[in-house]
C-alpha cells in the first residue's frame, strides 16, 4: 500500500477516483470467498428449509438458528478476538451480511443484532461491558436490539426522544421511563441499546437487559413483510439500569447513534444487494422454465432486457458497497480495539464516510426494490400469489427504503454533509466551484481528446457529471446561502446526481481493474455493464440538473447556465439495447447474476 493518503469522504466528487483506493469484489482474499461460501451454505442448508417456521415467528427456531450462526462465527466478524469474536476486517462482515441478504427476515434479525445492536458496545463499551456482553453476542446466545425510535421520534430521533433517565436516590441506578417503537428483535432480544435523555436533557445510551426490573416488550407488529422478524415496542417503567450500564459518556449518545447508523447503512446496502441478486436468480430461473408460445419466456427481448437491467444494477450495487467498505477498512487499519481512544478513532473513521454509507443505503435498497419488482413482473400472475417466492421477496424488500433512516433522510444527508465539510474547509468544494465557473467558458466538448484506454469516454463523462453537480450545487448555494437546507426538492436532486456519480465511477474503476486482470475479451461483461449504465444515467443527471437550474434562476441568467450544462453533459449515446442484449445473454446463460465470488 502506498503512503498516499486515503481519499476523504465525499472527495470522490472533486477528484477522479483512484483504483488503489477502490476495493472491488474481484480482490477478495481466499478467506473472504470461503466465508461467503460458508454463509451461503448455511443460509441454503439451515435457514431456507425453516422459512415457513420463521415466517410464523417461531421464536425457538429463530433462536436456534441464531445460535447455530454464532457457532460458525457468522455473528462475530466485528467483535474483537479478545471478546469471543473474530475481529475480522469490514470486508468480511460485508461478505457475511450480503449472503444473509438471501434470507429475508433472518437478514433483518442478523443485521440488527450484529450491527446496531452490538457495535455500540464494540466501539463505545468499556472493558467490563465488553467482557460481559460481547461473547454472548458473538455466540448468538443473546440477541441484541437497538432502541432509538419512538412514536414521536422517527427521523428526528434525538430531538423527539422522550424516554427519560434519572439517577436513583442511592446513585446506583438510572431509572428509565419511556416507550421505544418499531424495535427489530424486540420480542426476543436479551440486550437492548437504549437511548434516553438524562434529566430530560443529556441524550445518552444505556445497555439494558431484558431481565432488569421494569423492562418489557409489547405485542408484535403486523407487518407488510419480513414477517419472520420480531418488531415490537420496548417499554421502560421505572426500569432500573445499573449506573455501570451507561454506555460511553453522559450526553454523548448522539455520537453512538449517528456512528452506528452509518455502520447500519452500509450493512443494509450489502444485505440489499444480496437480496437483489437472489431475486435476479429466482426471476431468471423462472423465465427459463416458463414456456409461452412454445418457448421459454427468457427467449423474449422484453424479458431479457429486464434481466439485463437487474444485473446492471446489482453490479453497480456491489461496486458501491465494497468501495465504501474498503475505504472504512483502510481508515480503520491498525486501530487497536483495546486502546483507550479506540471509540474516538472509529467514530472519526466511520463518520468520515457517512456520505458513502448513506449512498450505500439508498442505492442498495432501491436496487433491491427494482429487482424484486421486476421479479414479480417476470413471474406474471404467479408473482402475485404466495405459492412462489417472488411475492414474499416483494413484501420483504419494501422496509429497506424506510428503516435505518428513510431514503429521504439519507438523501438529504448526502449534500448536507458535503456542504458541512465544505464550510469547515475539509473539502475544497467552493474552490472547485469557482474554478469551474471560470473553466466552463473555455470548455468545449468538441476539443476533448480522450486518452487511449478502455472506457475512456465513460470516464470522461463521469468527470463531466461531477462538474455538473458542482455547477448546480454551486449555483444553488449562491442563491440560497444558509437557507439552502430548506430547499429539499433541490437537495434531493443533488443527492440523486451524487449517488449516480459515485455508482458510475465505482463501476468504472471495477471494470478497468477487470480488464487489466482478464483482458478486454474476458472482461466484456464489465465493460458492457458500465457503458450501458452510464448511457442510462447521463440523461437522468441532465434532467435533474436542468430542473434545479430552472428553479434557481430565470431569464438570461438561466439561459447562460443551461448553456453551461449543455456543454458539460454533451454526450453521444451508445447502442444501449445491443449492450443489454449481450448482458442478458450472460445472465440467461448463467441462470442469474453472472459474476460469482
Amino acid at each position, binding site marked *: 500500500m502506498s503512503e498516499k493518503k486515503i481519499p476523504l469522504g465525499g472527495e470522490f466528487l472533486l477528484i477522479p477516483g483512484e483504483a488503489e483506493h477502490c476495493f472491488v469484489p474481484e480482490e477478495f482474499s*481466499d478467506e473472504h470467498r*470461503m466465508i461467503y461460501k460458508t454463509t451461503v*451454505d448455511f443460509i441454503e442448508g439451515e435457514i431456507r428449509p425453516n422459512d415457513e417456521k420463521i415466517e410464523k415467528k417461531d421464536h425457538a427456531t429463530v433462536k436456534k438458528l441464531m445460535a447455530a450462526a454464532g457457532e460458525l462465527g457468522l455473528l462475530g466478524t466485528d467483535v474483537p478476538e479478545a471478546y469471543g469474536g*473474530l475481529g*475480522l476486517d469490514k470486508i468480511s462482515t460485508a461478505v457475511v451480511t450480503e449472503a444473509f441478504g438471501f434470507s429475508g427476515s433472518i437478514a433483518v434479525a442478523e443485521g440488527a443484532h450484529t450491527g446496531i445492536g452490538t457495535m455500540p458496545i464494540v466501539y463505545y463499551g468499556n472493558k467490563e461491558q465488553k467482557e460481559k456482553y460481547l461473547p454472548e453476542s458473538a455466540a448468538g446466545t443473546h440477541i441484541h436490539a437497538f432502541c432509538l425510535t419512538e412514536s414521536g421520534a422517527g427521523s428526528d430521533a434525538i430531538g423527539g426522544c422522550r424516554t427519560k433517565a434519572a439517577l436513583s436516590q442511592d446513585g446506583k441506578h438510572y431509572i428509565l421511563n419511556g416507550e421505544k417503537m418499531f424495535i427489530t428483535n424486540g420480542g426476543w432480544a436479551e440486550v437492548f441499546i437504549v437511548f434516553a435523555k438524562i434529566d430530560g436533557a443529556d441524550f445518552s445510551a444505556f445497555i439494558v437487559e431484558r431481565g432488569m426490573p421494569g423492562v418489557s416488550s409489547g405485542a408484535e407488529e403486523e407487518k407488510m413483510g419480513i414477517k419472520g422478524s420480531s418488531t415490537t415496542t420496548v417499554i421502560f417503567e421505572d426500569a432500573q439500569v445499573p449506573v455501570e450500564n451507561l454506555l460511553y459518556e453522559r450526553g454523548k449518545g448522539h455520537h453512538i447513534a449517528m456512528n452506528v447508523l452509518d455502520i447500519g447503512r452500509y450493512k443494509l446496502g450489502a444485505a440489499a444487494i444480496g437480496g437483489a441478486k437472489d431475486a435476479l436468480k429466482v426471476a431468471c430461473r423462472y423465465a427459463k422454465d416458463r414456456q409461452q408460445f*412454445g418457448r421459454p419466456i427468457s427467449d423474449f427481448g422484453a424479458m431479457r432486457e429486464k434481466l439485463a437491467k437487474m444485473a446492471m444494477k446489482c453490479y453497480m450495487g456491489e461496486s458501491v458497497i465494497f468501495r465504501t467498505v474498503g475505504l472504512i477498512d483502510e481508515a480503520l487499519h491498525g486501530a487497536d480495539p483495546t486502546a483507550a481512544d479506540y471509540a474516538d478513532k472509529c467514530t472519526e473513521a466511520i463518520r468520515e464516510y457517512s456520505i458513502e454509507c448513506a449512498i450505500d443505503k439508498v442505492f442498495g435498497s432501491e436496487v433491491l426494490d427494482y429487482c424484486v419488482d421486476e421479479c414479480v413482473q417476470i413471474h406474471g400472475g404467479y408473482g402475485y400469489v404466495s405459492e412462489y417466492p417472488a411475492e414474499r421477496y416483494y413484501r420483504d424488500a419494501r422496509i429497506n427504503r424506510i428503516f435505518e433512516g428513510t431514503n429521504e433522510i439519507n438523501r438529504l444527508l448526502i449534500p448536507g454533509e458535503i456542504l458541512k465539510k465544505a464550510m469547515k474547509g475539509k473539502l475544497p468544494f467552493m474552490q472547485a466551484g469557482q474554478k469551474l465557473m471560470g473553466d466552463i467558458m473555455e470548455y468545449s466538448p468538441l476539443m476533448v481528446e480522450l486518452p487511449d484506454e478502455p472506457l475512456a469516454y465513460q470516464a470522461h463523462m463521469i468527470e463531466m457529471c461531477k462538474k455538473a453537480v458542482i455547477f448546480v450545487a454551486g449555483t444553488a448555494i449562491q442563491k440560497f446561502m444558509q437557507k439552502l437546507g430548506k430547499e429539499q426538492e433541490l437537495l434531493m436532486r443533488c443527492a440523486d446526481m451524487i449517488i449516480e456519480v459515485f455508482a458510475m465511477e465505482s463501476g468504472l474503476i471495477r471494470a478497468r481493474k477487470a480488464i487489466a486482470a482478464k483482458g478486454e475479451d474476458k472482461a466484456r461483461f464489465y465493460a458492457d455493464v458500465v457503458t450501458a449504465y452510464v448511457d442510462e444515467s447521463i440523461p437522468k443527471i441532465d434532467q435533474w440538473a436542468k430542473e434545479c437550474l430552472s428553479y434557481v434562476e430565470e431569464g438570461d441568467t438561466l439561459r447562460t447556465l443551461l448553456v453551461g450544462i449543455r456543454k458539460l453533459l454533451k454526450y453521444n449515446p451508445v447502442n444501449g439495447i445491443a449492450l443489454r442484449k449481450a448482458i442478458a445473454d450472460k445472465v440467461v446463460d448463467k441462470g442469474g447474476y453472472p459474476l460469482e465470488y
Partner: protein
Amino acid sequence: MNLVVCIKQVPDTETQIKVGADGKSINMDDIKWVMNPYDEFGVEEALRIKADKGGDVIVVGAGPKRVTEALRTALAMGADKAILIEDEGLYGADPIFVGKLLAKAIEPLNPDIVFFGQRAVDDDCGLASSSVAEALGMPQLAVIVKQELDGDTIKVQRPVEGQTNVLSTKLPVCLTAQKGLNEPRYASLPGIMKAKKKPLEVKTLADLGVERDDKIEIAAINPPPERAPGKVIQGETPEELAVNLAKALREEAKVI
C-alpha cells in the same frame, strides 16, 4: 491414526457445463470449482474418527493450482494438513493413472484409512479409489453409509438395492463414502482463519517420480440433446381435446 482423504475439485453442480472447442473437454471459462460433494462425506467421517480416536487428517488433491481452494476448504473444516500434486494438465486424466499418482503421495503417510467420495460428480467414474487400493495393496470397501471401528477391525454397511450389505476387514483400508454416511459440517469462520496457517505441501509429478501413463483418453463429450419444445393440443371441446391428446400420446409420443 493416520487418516487420509483424497479430494477432487469439480465444477459446482449448479454450473452449466459447455463442451469446449475441441469437443473432448469442457469449457473451463466461468466455472465455479468446489470440493466434490461425496468427498465432503469423507472429510467429515475422517474428522469424526479423529475426534473419537485421535490422529491426523491429511487431505490430498491432484490437479491445477486452483485445487488449493478445495484443499483449503477441507483444512477449514478441520483437517490438519494438505498435499497438492500440482499439474496443470491433470484434469480429465485417466483415473487409473490419477490413482497411481495419488498412491505415490499417500504411501509415505503410512495411512490407516484412505477415504474417497464414492465417485466424482463431474465424470462419474469412481475409479481412482480402486486404483489407489490396488497400488497400496489395501482392501477397498466401496459406497459405504456407516462404519464402526474396533481396534484394527472395521465394519461397514453398504446399501444394495434396499438391503444392507455388512462387510468387515482389517486396517489399513480404502473406503468410499456414499451420501448418508454423515452430515458434513460447514467450514466455520474460525476454521477458515486457522486454515490459512495450516501446512499445504505442493509436489509435482517429477517430485513423485511419476510420468504420465494414461491408458485411456477422452474421445468426445456430447452434450445432452436440447429439450424439444412443448406441443399445444388443439380442440374446441374437452372431448375433442381428450381425443387429440390420446392420439398424440399414442401416435407421436408412442407412450400409450
